[in-house]
């Protein structure tokens, strides 16, 4: 079986074919390629069990963790999108800290409350995030707004907004209004690609609701109108829109 791997070295991009083994994961195959065929092939890996989040790549355009992905004939392996490619399948994801910082997604003030099984379950899914950057890569908003806070940072914001221990939910909500929850198109790409079955689209919808309830301006209609839906209220239908 053959797969195609996108290579990037010395400022040149090209695609190379490699023979691989069907019953092995993508990561196991990449390691074997490095061992037996091309020692310069560059990719990242850590835990090999889907918890460290550093081996995410795109398989036929869709974000996947290399360590948990089985291959099919002619699969195309590429680096994540929306980040600068450093070499082969490695991207520069150093923006992560800045995004988390901007969303204020951490416990601000501890409330003295009782936590029940239900309370803990409320944030279980969101706190399973492994920061693999898959959702960031899948997000179309970055093409028009590079300052967008993005799916994982917003899901993390909800993880603390929904944490009963958090005593200052407003501080988090206030920091995600600009370039945040209202800029999302709710396309659901992030939800589709998350290896941890997190639903950032739903989390962002939740954050919109909680923001509106807390007195923040509901900008969903404003964005809806500014987004090109294909319908031009002044001149009828625009066939180039969608």
């Amino acid at each position, binding site marked *: 079986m053959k797969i195609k791997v996108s290579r990037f070295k010395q400022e040149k991009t090209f695609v190379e074919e490699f023979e691989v083994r069907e019953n092995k994961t993508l990561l196991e195959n990449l390691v074997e390629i490095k*061992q037996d065929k091309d*020692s310069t092939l*560059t990719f990242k890996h*850590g835990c*090999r069990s889907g*918890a460290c989040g550093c081996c995410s790549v795109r398989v036929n355009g869709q974000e996947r963790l290399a360590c948990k992905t089985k291959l099919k004939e002619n699969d195309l392996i590429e680096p994540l999108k929306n980040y600068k490619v450093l*070499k082969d399948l490695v991207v520069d994801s150093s923006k992560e800290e800045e995004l988390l910082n901007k969303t204020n*997604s951490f416990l601000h003030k501890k409330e003295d409350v009782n936590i029940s*099984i239900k309370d803990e379950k409320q944030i279980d899914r969101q*706190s399973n995030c492994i920061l693999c950057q898959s959702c960031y890569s899948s997000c179309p908003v970055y093409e028009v707004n590079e300052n967008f806070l993005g799916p994982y940072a917003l899901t993390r914001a909800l993880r603390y907004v929904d944490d009963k221990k958090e005593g200052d939910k407003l501080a988090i909500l206030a920091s995600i209004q600009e370039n945040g929850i209202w800029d999302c198109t709710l396309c659901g790409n992030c939800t589709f690609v998350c290896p941890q079955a997190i639903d950032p689209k739903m989390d962002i919808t939740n954050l919109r609701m909680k923001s509106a309830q807390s007195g923040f301006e509901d900008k969903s209609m404003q964005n809806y109108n500014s987004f090109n839906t294909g319908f031009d209220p002044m001149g009828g239908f625009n066939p180039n829109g969608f």
Partner: protein
Amino acid sequence: MTTDILVIGSGAAGLTAALESKRDNIRVTVVSKCYPTNSQTCQAQGGINAVLETTEDDSIEKFIEDTFIASKGIASKSSIKKMCQSSKDIITWLDDIAVPFSRNEQNSIAQRKFGGTKAKRTCYSSDYTGLKILHTLYDQCIKNKIEFLNEYFLLDFIKEDENIYGAVFLDIKTLEIIKIYAKSVILASGGYAGIYENNTTNSSFTTSEALVKVYKNGATLSNLEFVQFHPTAIEGSNTLISESARAEGGFLVDEKGNRFIDELKPRDEVSRAISEKLLKNEKVFLDLRHLDEKLIDELLPQEKQLAKTFKDIDISKELLPIVSAAHYSMGGVLCDENAKTSLKNLFVCGECAQGNIHGANRLGGNSLLEVIYLAKKAGNSAFQNLQRATIKEDIKTVDFEKSIENILSNENIINVSKEKKEFGEKLFKSLGVFKDESNMKTLLSYLEELEQRLKVSTIEDKSRVYNKSLIEFLEFKESVYMAKLIAKCALERKESRGAHFRSDFKEQKEEFEKISIVKYEKEQDIISYEDAV
């Protein structure tokens, strides 16, 4: 650049130490060869031990006893006592910074039973305990303005006399060299069980170079011969299946479907029972078929998913073939109760530390506890140290630009990935669950030969952009030295104790009821023994 406190490593130990040492006017810099949440802590699924007010049928005394029994007499009762006593405060601290611990019906933190313990003592967050602790700590570090330098590889420490004044790093992205001068340095770089390539549950980042660097700078290492082999890794991929699978009632069965050991005995005993069968080319399975499927979905979702991904097996309906794999290193940089090392300004915590708590074997659920416990000590000691320490920049170091250039210009090209595979297999065979003198001596000659060969070798990739081959080459050189040290210490300990099992000396001997010490003196590895204090 200069900073006040330099933390090397960004797992739970490094991040806790950073938070503990941080004050408004104090600059704390965490330098890591990966991104913080890539660190191996994320793999600690099972949990963290503690005696809480709500813990039933348990006491600090029982906790101390269990930990000391597992150590096989070579840990410090006083250190264990202090850790066990502070376990409640540690859980409270973690809970207070928003680690989402699983709860029980009474709204208390839920606890479950792990191997080698008398009570349900292990707190958890479903089976993502380490992951959730690590990410919560990271969020707190961002809140507290801890500085991060990610993807920087440690080349050496900056040292004069017996004082550490900082460290030298290689920027993995550009191969530029930076020196970071600091008043206090905290080493939290992880253990060395990861060097058993292809036979380890550890992360690929856990390659032990920092331990060798600090050793060659004069730090005392201890108990290196004690490497814990986890009983249950998935056959083929070596993916860890947490002890919680057995804690929740899972069985270990042989090819005929018979149980052959009490599954909740200490890990060394269970691993040996399994390895005995594997060495006879028999298969061993983890059997969870008798458990309620709902309980598996609720409490072991990650194990269920891992078995499906790596073996295409549904653990609620099928047997899962397992092997034992190198999992945890009990040894490391020897430190006192305040995480101080034999070098001034240097503190140590996490798996790279030997704080006389685990001794010859570590109990499940005790590593995360020791990580946080010792990291708080290290952070606090590093902060206290600022009062007496100074920044010292006029220290001559090796010309690392030149040594990197030399490596890249060598002629003998080797494939590090291929070499590592062979190295890992040899280590697992000769320095694994069962060891003996003849195998270890053969291994040592191979390691000596490999070490010499690496000195004149290079890699195919000569680029200066994200040269992962170069990083793996630099890691591998130190892993080989680390393997030599483990083998030398294991040869010297002519007895069996805890995780260290000699086929040629099967009994535990009183004369060895001591910790081993190894020091680098005049370019020689000098081994001695001391009482654990």
